[in-house]
């Protein structure tokens, strides 16, 4: 009997090593001529990888678009972009290891990527002391995460604080009767800081958040209790924040099943496609959120290019593609403007730039009043609407309306 097991385990080992080694051998690519190596921290496995992994596709699109143009020129020399990808493994330890590998192992000076606050914090503890520019996809506005103490961090997309502004703009313009809002948000430490910010911005629009922010634990399996509590508040509308399409889609699904027909809107990164998939067509109505689709009207040429390539290669375009795209593209734009590969010079140039090109079109650098640091990229923001299970385009919230210096 022992022999059977020996043979069995040897067979398993051979299978495992074949499985693992063959792709890595096959994936050896030739080095490009002169390259700027940019590290990208992607969540390919583990927690929330089914949502966050897509940003890597966006980053690859950025690399391809830049390289197809011939790369960028710095002091007369041509450079192509190369992405060095590391997996954050869906855990803070993995993010820490990924950041260490990129900063100390591969000695990169520019890194990009990532979402959840706790991964970003882990990565930042490595990049900041090393003076490596870290251009994140998103910022959840917690006081630790982004501020004057993080001089080498930049945020390449309109994030939490500014998303409130854009969504309230759309709300007040299209639903003038809504005055009170119940806010549901994931309770992962961001509630305290977000509470402050959202109420301040709501007040500027004449809106009130009714009661406290309803927080749900990240280990929640079923959101019925949360939704019940929200509906009971009896505000004019229900808003949900970050949390992922699974949570927010479930929230809408359960709310509609409970008979709530009022307005629900989202202020976050998920996008209507994933929310509709989770909530189901019949629940997806009377809803709007930030989101991107391939058939938006009035796109700038660069957005059209991104959309075309994404549809051809990945058969879909979501906001996450643009998150990843911007995190690479804006950084390369800054490097181009600084005409230097020294992170210190690039940082100084970048924070003094006023306009910058983004995947959505022209953008501006700002954020000093909100965050103490002029490191946020502002760009126009699309709003998507779900109506009777159909995804429709809501509006563009233009750059000038959104921009906070």
């Amino acid at each position, binding site marked *: 009997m022992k022999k059977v097991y*020996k043979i069995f385990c040897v067979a398993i080992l051979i299978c495992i090593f074949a499985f693992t080694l063959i792709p890595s051998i096959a994936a050896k690519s030739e080095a490009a001529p002169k390259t700027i190596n940019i590290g990208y921290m992607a969540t390919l496995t583990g927690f929330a990888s089914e949502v966050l992994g897509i940003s890597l596709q966006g980053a690859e699109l950025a690399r391809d678009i830049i390289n197809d143009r011939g790369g960028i020129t710095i002091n007369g020399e041509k450079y192509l972009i190369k992405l060095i990808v590391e997996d954050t493994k869906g855990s803070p330890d993995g993010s820490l*290891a990924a950041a260490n590998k990129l900063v100390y192992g591969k000695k990169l000076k520019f890194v990009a990527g990532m979402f959840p606050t706790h991964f970003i914090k882990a990565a930042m503890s490595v990049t900041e002391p090393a003076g490596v520019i870290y251009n994140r996809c998103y910022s959840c506005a917690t006081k630790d995460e982004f501020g004057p103490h993080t001089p080498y961090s930049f945020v390449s997309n309109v994030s939490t604080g500014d998303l409130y502004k854009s969504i309230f703009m759309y709300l007040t313009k299209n639903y003038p009767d809504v005055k009170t809002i119940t806010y549901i948000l994931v309770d992962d430490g961001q509630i305290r800081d977000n509470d402050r910010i959202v109420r301040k911005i709501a007040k500027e629009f004449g809106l009130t958040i009714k009661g406290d922010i309803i927080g749900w*634990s990240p280990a929640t399996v079923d959101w019925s209790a949360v939704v019940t509590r929200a509906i009971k508040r009896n505000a004019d509308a229900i808003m949900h924040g970050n949390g992922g399409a699974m949570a927010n889609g479930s929230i809408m699904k359960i709310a509609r099943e409970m008979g709530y027909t009022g307005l629900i809107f989202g202020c976050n990164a998920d996008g209507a496609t994933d929310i509709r998939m989770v909530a189901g067509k019949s629940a997806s109505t009377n809803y709007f959120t930030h989101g991107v689709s391939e058939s938006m009207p009035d796109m700038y040429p660069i957005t059209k290019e991104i959309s075309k390539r994404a549809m051809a290669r990945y058969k879909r375009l979501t906001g996450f593609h643009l998150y990843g795209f911007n995190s690479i593209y804006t950084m390369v734009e800054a490097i181009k403007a600084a005409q230097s590969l020294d992170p210190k010079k690039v940082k100084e140039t970048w924070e003094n730039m006023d306009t910058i090109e983004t995947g959505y079109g022209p953008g501006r650098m700002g954020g000093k009043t909100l965050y103490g640091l002029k490191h946020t990229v502002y760009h126009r923001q699309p709003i998507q609407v779900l109506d009777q299970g159909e995804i429709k385009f809501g509006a563009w919230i233009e750059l000038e309306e959104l921009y906070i210096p």
Partner: protein
Amino acid sequence: MISLRRTAISYLLILIFLCLLPVFIKSYYLLHVFILTFIYIIATSSLRLIATSGQISLGHAGFMSIGAYTAAILAKELGWSPWLTLPLGGLSTMIVAMIVGYPFSRLRLIYFSMVSLFFGIGILAVNQVFDYYTGGFSGMMLIPPLLGSSKLPYYYFFLGLTLLCLIFMVRFETCRIGLTIKAIAQSHTVASSVGINEAAYRILILSIGCFFAGIAGAGYAHYTLVLTHGTFNLLASINLVIYMLVGGINRFIGPVIGTAVLMILPELFRDLKEYVPFVFSGIMLLVLFVMPDGLAGLPGQIKYWISTHRKKG
């Protein structure tokens, strides 16, 4: 006696190798992996210490988190020196272990494992409640560092700290108290019949083991400067148990080898990206089917195979 000298020489060689390692490794990234391995060796060995009394704790990462957050909050909010908060982290974990040890250690084997599992999850939930200080699920950062920002001092510090802890633990296991505890694990009825106060000893070993877990946690906090929910969740506790079991629960050196192999090897294979968990599970399956005594039992096993083959031939 010859074998004792041989063992001592081989350990000394390994020690010299480890001291000289940073000279050969230019990459600070690998240093980072080694530093984390040292920290987790302390944690896993302390887990094994508790396991010698027959209590397998499935919530050990939860105890680590107590030490980590205590040290971090004291250093960040009150401004105390990390050199002070590191041992305080260990102390606070020990105190918590003494308090919960009283009800928990009454439970045997699997029930203890279950209650420790829930305690591990529970500590994280408590973290979320006090999220002003702990940062909740997404954690806290900007913890004051122990030795500045360069990696090299940390390497030697943790090498030394790990050695110190391991020496203490191995002496403890072989001293009279440690032997008493092993006796309790083997047969608690016989032990009680001889007049040994079973509950007291179990609480004692739990406290000491958790002290080292707290030290490991505080060390982690003051090195990585970031603490989040994901570092100390159920998966982390299970990982510690796996490191211990794969290394071999019967020998003291087991957790050390298990942690080292299971932390360093997957990092070497990092380029495989999504496929890395296969490496991990491959090692586990190998140990499962081929090495019943864990990785630490490998030399003995090889001797056994050689001798059986010799008999056949």
